[in-house]
């Protein structure tokens, strides 16, 4: 790319410079960047807790922090990462930025609501940070009752309220996306001409809208039970603690798909772009997203296999959990088939996409282990579970997020990042990730329980490997932070479509103008037409 390309004279980043132009913006692209800054902050806060957890676990005895502090560390790590990073990560940043661009609209359907949801998110974040600074919370991110409502003496209420508040941000984002995708598409952009990223975000939004209210009411019940001693879940007051688990997982299992579905959407964009091929089996990939969202609501009971569930319920939940593997595998096979005989370029986003496919497959297959009743009973609450869901959430969701961030970075910033550093750090992240979490499968299978700050000495070697991997992973995440920030000022100017990808977002300038398109585009082509040169589309 030659450096003689200039940034467009007018774009969303130079449309006003003051702090008010950012904090009161209604432009979805600027709101996406507000989210990007906020979630990056929470990601590194959550990461700092992970560092301390792994430091503690390098030695068998609990010597670095006390057991109580350790309980708070893993709780805050989980709360920060799940509710304040993973759930909003791709939807609120890339989704916010790209949905109007991909459908040829000027903005989301409700721009003010979009800004409001950012402020709600920040408010929830402050509540949780307050809980953290004023002493932390030790219930685990799952807030199981009656410990959370009766026994724990830590800051359960502000944390629960923080999650309650942040839930409304998710709900409003999901609502905004659903209405936008239904009502704001450019002329000619039928559902089956949409990029698959939008299908996956639509499915994600369905979960936001249907699942989040349930976690909201559940957190409210926990807070009310603690404050007013109402007995919803406390057995001494007539309640049932297992009911909490049902309500909690009714949201929190689908929430896993909130995290991984958008990453799947990102991969569905990257793979065709770097293989120069149409996606294989478009409708199957599209419906697989919806199928995962729907099935995701029917499997929560597999978190309760050991909690006193009827064996018949457990068997049905087990069978339904297996069914999630079908649409997931459809996606993996279709990406692989897309790559088959493609002309693959090994650029950074593609590295992340391939990393995603491999790690998601491992995470998904070990999920089948856990859906199998007897194996689940054996490995419940061990590091096997920890390793499994980190393969999905870190190996899957964060790989997808990083891939998407790199893929669309030239569109977002108008500039190119350092490809060499980016490839190196993608490799470091992949290595560090596997070194961190693969030993945990073994540890869990051997019986090391989660949530203890000490362990028998025979587990030390694997734990040291895991901690070493975590330090490598940490470096891997810091490098992109540096070169991406650097590229904002010093990166080469990208031009509107540096990699020759197809899709409406590449037809406008980089960075796009505030109104996205100077004229509303009229779509007359299918998605991913990499077999036809781009110029023929733009009539």
């Amino acid at each position, binding site marked *: 790319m030659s450096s003689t390309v200039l940034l467009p004279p007018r774009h969303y980043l130079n449309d006003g410079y003051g702090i008010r132009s950012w904090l009161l913006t209604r432009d979805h692209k600027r709101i996406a960047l507000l989210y990007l800054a906020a979630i990056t902050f929470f990601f590194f806060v959550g990461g700092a807790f992970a560092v301390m957890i792994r430091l503690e676990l390098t030695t068998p005895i609990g010597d670095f922090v006390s057991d109580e502090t350790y309980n708070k560390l893993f709780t805050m790590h989980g709360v920060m990462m799940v509710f304040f990073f993973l759930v909003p990560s791709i939807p609120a940043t890339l989704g916010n930025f790209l949905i109007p661009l991909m459908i040829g609209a000027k903005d989301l359907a409700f721009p003010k609501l979009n800004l409001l949801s950012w402020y709600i998110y920040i408010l929830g974040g402050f509540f949780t940070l307050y809980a953290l600074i004023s002493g932390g919370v030790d219930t685990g991110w799952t807030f199981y009752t009656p410990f959370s409502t009766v026994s724990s003496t830590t800051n359960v209420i502000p944390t629960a309220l923080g999650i309650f508040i942040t839930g409304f941000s998710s*709900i409003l984002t999901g609502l905004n996306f659903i209405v936008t995708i239904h*009502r704001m598409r450019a002329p000619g952009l039928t559902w089956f001409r949409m990029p698959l990223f939008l299908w996956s975000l639509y499915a994600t939004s369905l979960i936001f809208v249907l699942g989040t209210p349930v976690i909201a009411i559940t957190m409210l019940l926990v807070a009310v039970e603690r404050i007013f001693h109402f007995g919803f879940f406390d057995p001494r*007051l007539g309640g049932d603690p297992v009911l909490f688990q049902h*309500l909690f997982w*009714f949201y929190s299992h689908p929430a896993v798909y909130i995290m991984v579905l958008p990453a799947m959407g990102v991969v569905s964009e990257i793979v065709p772009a770097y293989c120069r091929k149409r996606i294989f089996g478009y409708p199957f990939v599209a419906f697989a997203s919806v199928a995962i969202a729907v099935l995701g609501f029917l499997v929560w009971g597999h978190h309760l296999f050991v909690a006193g569930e009827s064996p018949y319920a457990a068997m049905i939940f087990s069978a339904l959990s297996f069914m999630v593997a079908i649409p997931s595998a459809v996606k993996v096979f279709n990406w692989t088939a897309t790559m088959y005989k493609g002309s693959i370029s090994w650029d950074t986003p593609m590295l992340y996409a391939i990393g995603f496919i491999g790690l998601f497959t491992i995470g998904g297959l070990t999920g089948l282990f856990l859906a199998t009743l007897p194996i689940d009973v054996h490995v419940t609450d061990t590091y096997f579970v920890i390793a499994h869901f980190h393969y999905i959430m870190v190996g899957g969701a964060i790989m997808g997020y990083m891939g998407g961030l790199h893929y669309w970075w030239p569109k977002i910033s108008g500039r190119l990042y350092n490809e060499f550093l980016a490839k190196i750090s993608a490799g470091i992240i992949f290595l560090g990730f596997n070194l961190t979490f693969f030993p945990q499968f073994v540890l869990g299978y051997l019986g090391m329980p989660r949530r203890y700050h000490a362990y028998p000495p025979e587990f030390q070697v694997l734990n040291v490997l895991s901690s070493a991997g975590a330090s490598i992973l940490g470096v891997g995440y810091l490098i992109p932070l540096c070169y991406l920030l650097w590229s904002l000022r010093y990166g080469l100017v990208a031009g509107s479509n540096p990699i020759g990808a197809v899709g409406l977002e590449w037809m406008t300038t980089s960075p796009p103008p505030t109104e996205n398109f100077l004229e509303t585009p009229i779509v007359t082509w299918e998605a991913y037409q990499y077999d036809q040169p781009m110029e023929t589309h733009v009539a």
Partner: protein
Amino acid sequence: MSPEAVHTYSPALAHQFDDAGQQKEAATLGMWVFLVTEVLFFGGLFVTYLVYRNWYPGAFTAASHEMIVWAGTTNTFVLITSSLTMALAVHAAQLGNRRLLMTFLIITMALGCVFLGIKAFEYYSEYVEHHVPGMGFQFEAEHFQHAQLFFSLYFMMTGLHALHMIIGLGIMSVMLWWSYRGVITPEYTNPIEISGLYWHFVDIVWIFLFPLLYLIGRHVHG
């Protein structure tokens, strides 16, 4: 600006929409999706109620005998009437009759206040009779524990419903102000219509709460 981007000017048309029709469709769909989230929000409570009612029918029947049925019945009629006046307000807005619109909005809000007043009276009676969990709760010994559960759910469910009523009154105040200022025109009735959807939804929640909390099991002598 290209010529086709120029539309008939409407001060109420937000910049992201092409025309008023699209804006109206988006606003309506948005409110429906929001109401779906509300169904799920209350749904968590309804599930909790149904599970415990199924487990402890005796205690729940005994506790529901303590409800003031005439108050609940009156409130049901008050709310259904307010839904009627709300629908009439939407109709008046579509006709462009500002005076009628404001009258119906005021009646709707007044009925909402009557509902909250009666609800407050009920809460006060229950407080006097020591039926508030966590505040010196008293009940016959046989059902003490699970009646407490019933009252926990009763206060949570009706309390959240009352909160929705209060939010509804706030929305109606804004609608009244906008009607007074002439923001609402026959061409731009979206705010009144989607506020009406919200108001009807809050009514419907009560239509479910009333039989669940006040009526079911009344003929059974618990």
